[in-house]
């Protein structure tokens, strides 16, 4: 991947900032998401809550289903490949997908190696729980990061933990002397120039969204106040009582995340939130993938 292409891919993520990316499983849901103000959609066969319920191996979606969603909306369409499954990624690139999510929500295909994302022209977003993970994915060619959270639970606790961890680790790196950065690069197992970037700028060199467990407008605003540049909402919308209304409310909450009066107004009367499950009570922990 040329420098130029990587820059263009990082810049697409810039355009998504301040927005909400929604999981959708059908063209109809994609249209609802677009009408509600989603800045992009994630096309997948089953939302994470249903992946949990179904069990078994979870894979890349059927290209036919992805194409149906690409034809239904004008906003960017993302799709998930299994961690390390570079052929699924090649297939998604052939579909001219706008962003590939190398995602822990699907069953990992490789327990050692992630996809070498520098070999692709299309951009990748990857999950991370801490600064080391985020910078390793960026070194592999990710042009956007999302904190992992714990997908399909409707419980925001892991998303909060991961965002706080990354933010506090970045503040620590900023506070170091320059001659201490080499050792930090060693500790995090990441290239020195990425550590130097964080030291000098106090942020990741790519856009950082939050994901995994966001179910309410308040959850979305919480993640924004903790430093997210935008939010992925998976099961939280189409597992709720009134997807249209909840989706639109979460979009507005991300714009006005610092305005409690607006948040109060748009949190009203949204119907039932997704039931949710506590990460302590589930068998499959996706974040550790």
């Amino acid at each position: 991947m040329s420098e130029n292409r990587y820059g263009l891919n990082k810049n697409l993520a810039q355009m998504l900032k301040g927005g909400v990316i929604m999981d959708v499983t059908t063209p109809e849901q994609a249209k609802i998401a677009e009408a509600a103000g989603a800045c992009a959609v994630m096309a997948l066969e089953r939302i994470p809550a249903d992946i949990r319920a179904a069990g078994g191996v979870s894979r890349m979606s059927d290209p036919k289903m992805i194409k149906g969603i690409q034809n239904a909306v004008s906003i960017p369409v993302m799709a998930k490949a299994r961690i390390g499954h570079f052929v699924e990624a090649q297939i998604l690139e052939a579909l001219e997908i706008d962003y590939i999510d190398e995602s822990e929500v699907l069953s990992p295909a490789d327990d050692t190696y992630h996809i070498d994302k520098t070999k692709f022209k299309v951009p990748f977003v990857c999950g991370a729980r801490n600064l080391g993970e985020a910078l390793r994915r960026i070194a592999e060619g990710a042009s956007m990061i999302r904190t992992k959270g714990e997908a399909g639970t409707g419980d925001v606790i892991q998303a909060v933990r991961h965002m706080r961890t990354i933010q506090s680790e970045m503040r620590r790196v900023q506070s170091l002397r320059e001659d201490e950065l080499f050792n930090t690069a060693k500790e995090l197992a990441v290239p020195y120039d990425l550590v130097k970037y964080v030291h000098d700028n106090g942020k990741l060199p790519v856009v950082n969204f939050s994901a995994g467990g966001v179910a309410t407008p308040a959850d979305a605003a919480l993640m924004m106040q903790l430093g997210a540049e935008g939010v992925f909402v998976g099961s939280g919308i189409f597992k709720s009582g009134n997807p249209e209304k909840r989706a639109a409310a979460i979009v507005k909450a991300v714009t006005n995340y610092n305005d409690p009066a607006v948040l109060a107004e748009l949190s009203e009367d949204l119907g039932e939130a997704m039931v949710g499950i506590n990460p302590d009570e589930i068998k499959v922990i996706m974040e550790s993938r």
Partner: protein
Amino acid sequence: MVIAVLAVQGSFFEHERILDRLGVEYFEIRHKSDLGRDFDGLILPGGESTTMGKLLRELDLFDTLKKKIIDGLPVYGTCAGMILLSSRLSNDDNVYFGTMDMTVRRNAYGRQLGSFETVADVKGIGEVPMVFIRAPYIESIGEKAEALATVNGNIVAARQGNQLVTSFHPELTDNTKVHEYFLSMIK
């Protein structure tokens, strides 16, 4: 001089960084209460036009901003901002402010694989680096508007009185010339 930057979604921070470099005061518009402040110019940033168009209406910003633009407020739209100002979209039934006499094609270069960079001349500005991200272009332009730049035969910058639009994103480069040109439109 104070510039308002529409900050409901998208790449508004990068415009603010350019304004910082040029030493220009600005504030963000996210909510109706922000419209109570006086401002001399408006920037509509890149992002998703469907998202921004919906938020403009639902946050009750649309009518006030449209009236200000019609009344002559200098406005600069990049990418999605160009779509918001266009009076016609060739591949979409939506029209937003519709104050600029032109027909714009959304996602005119296709999906993300079609995004590209180039350098080209802009009338009255000179050569500038241009970053196109899932960009629109102007298919045809009305009599009231003037084309300022073309790339591969397609119009990618135009002006109509108080309104300036570019398909590309100068805010994603280090070049401040287009923003300086916009500021010169503010008397």
